[in-house]
């Protein structure tokens, strides 16, 4: 029972990270039809922005305070990078999907190479607030505190995005655009302005995911964004491109399956199980869990 509680909470905690990584990717594809392979670069930018910010702030500040500032900086960096990528690289290629893939893959590879050139390929340790490194006893299980934070942040982002989608004009345009982008334009709405905002939001969410993932791993490295991106893609394919609720359900499912398989089968089987889950969903429900509704 104790093990089961531990696995469930750590699984949901991992799923929370996957949701943060996948949410922007899902909405960007759902609305714009852009498969953004540079999303991993956004995550890497967030983790490095956080790491650099924490290092640059006075050591007299508590780690928690510096982490909080780092989160704000990472969000801003992710949003600005997302905005620039949309305006400079994606906008001229909206009707050219192959070129979009090439450009975003190229950007991803280039940014990893640039990070390796500047900070080296080896993982760098990140500071972690004392509380996040500790555990809390729940139902006899010692649960890592950082998972609670991941879950809390992911729930806040999920609710924030739901509120944005359902209670704002931007959200209304996004939901309509996910269904039928051409018809949104045919009603006189400049959907391209929405694209830019969505890319900035997606960049910010990815950067947050990257920063929190570096806290989870205890290090930052250029390859982190890429590995997280693979899980993010699996999550959005299972959950349905453009569906926020589907993405959340799929993220938790992937996190749980991974942790359960790692614990009850053998270490390393978790990754294989996730791919099997993907295959199973595609076989049983080719249109994904939720279809294309945001």
């Amino acid at each position, binding site marked *: 029972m104790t093990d089961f509680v531990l696995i469930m909470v750590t699984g949901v905690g991992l799923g929370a990270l996957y949701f943060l990584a996948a949410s922007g990717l899902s909405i960007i594809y759902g609305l714009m039809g852009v498969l953004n392979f540079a999303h991993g670069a956004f995550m890497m930018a967030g983790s490095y922005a956080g790491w650099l910010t924490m290092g640059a702030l006075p050591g007299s500040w508590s780690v928690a305070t510096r982490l909080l500032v780092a989160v704000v900086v990472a969000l801003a960096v992710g949003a600005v990078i997302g905005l620039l990528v949309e305006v400079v690289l994606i906008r001229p290629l909206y009707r050219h999907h192959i070129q979009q893939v090439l450009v975003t893959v190229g950007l991803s590879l280039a940014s990893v190479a640039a990070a390796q050139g500047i900070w080296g390929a080896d993982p760098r340790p990140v500071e972690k607030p004392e509380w996040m490194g500790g555990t809390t006893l729940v139902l006899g299980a010692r649960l890592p505190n950082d998972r609670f934070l991941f879950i809390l942040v992911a729930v806040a982002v999920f609710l924030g995005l739901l509120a944005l989608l359902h209670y704002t*004009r931007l959200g*209304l*345009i996004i*939901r*309509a655009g996910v*269904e*039928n982008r*051409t*018809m*949104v*334009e*045919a*009603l*006189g*709405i*400049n*959907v391209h302005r929405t694209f830019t905002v969505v890319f900035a939001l997606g960049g910010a969410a990815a950067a947050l995911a990257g920063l929190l993932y570096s806290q989870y791993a205890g290090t930052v490295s250029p390859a982190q964004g890429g590995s997280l991106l693979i899980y993010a893609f699996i999550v959005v394919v299972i959950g349905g491109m453009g569906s926020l609720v589907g993405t959340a359900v799929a993220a938790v499912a992937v996190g749980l399956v991974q942790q359960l398989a790692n614990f009850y089968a053998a270490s390393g089987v978790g990754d294989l199980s996730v791919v099997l889950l993907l295959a199973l969903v595609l076989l049983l429900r080719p249109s994904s869990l939720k279809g294309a*509704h*945001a």
Partner: protein
Amino acid sequence: MTEQPTARGPGSPSPSEVGPVLTVADLHVRYGGSHVLQGVSFDVPATGVTALLGRNGVGKTTTLKAIIGLAPRSGRIVLRGKEIQDEPTPRIIRAGIGYVPEDREVFGGLTVDENLRLVDPDLGVDAPIVGRLFPDLVARGRQRAGTLSGGQQQMVSLARVLLRTTSVLLVDEPTKGLAPKLVTEVADVLAEVARTTPILLVEQNLPLVRRIADTVVVLDAGQVVHRGGAAELVADADLTRELLGVSMRREGVA
């Protein structure tokens, strides 16, 4: 028998008395190697209903899409004296064109109210025009548009373009797939709207064309092959058979 509304209101000028609201000149559309529209030119008068007719696949829907920039085109499109062919679609719409697409294309995951507020955040099912022309929608504001019947979806599709003041409406086969009663309801709405706003209507239903259209433009193989009065065309069985492949006797009465 109740008197059905006609498109032109009493005292309105005839189409020939005022200049065109929309001019399409030498419009070409190519999809890959296919030359779909081959120099289409016509005017839409500032009043009444202009029906764009033709057999299936001659380019009627493509013409409407090309006018608002949803099809790759060349040529000249003039709205109230201003050339709009180089503008992006949203700006063309905002310049004063309302577009009701074939197959409604309502946003099925959005409620009826949200479908309307997408056009104008301040106007939903409580807008006066909705209550006047589409009373059935008023109580369905919170219903997802995807769960509506075809006729109700058509009303949503029409209502959302009428929330904004437009110079001309492009309406593509609004009665397609609808039951006869609903066809009459849609025709009533279009006739009412046409009293104040000119309409370019793509329609296969000849009795409906006879009832609400003033002028017709007939396309064949991507070119205009006939222009004239709606009543004259529909009354000429040989001409309708020659141009459209149908006659009023086979089409019945709306």
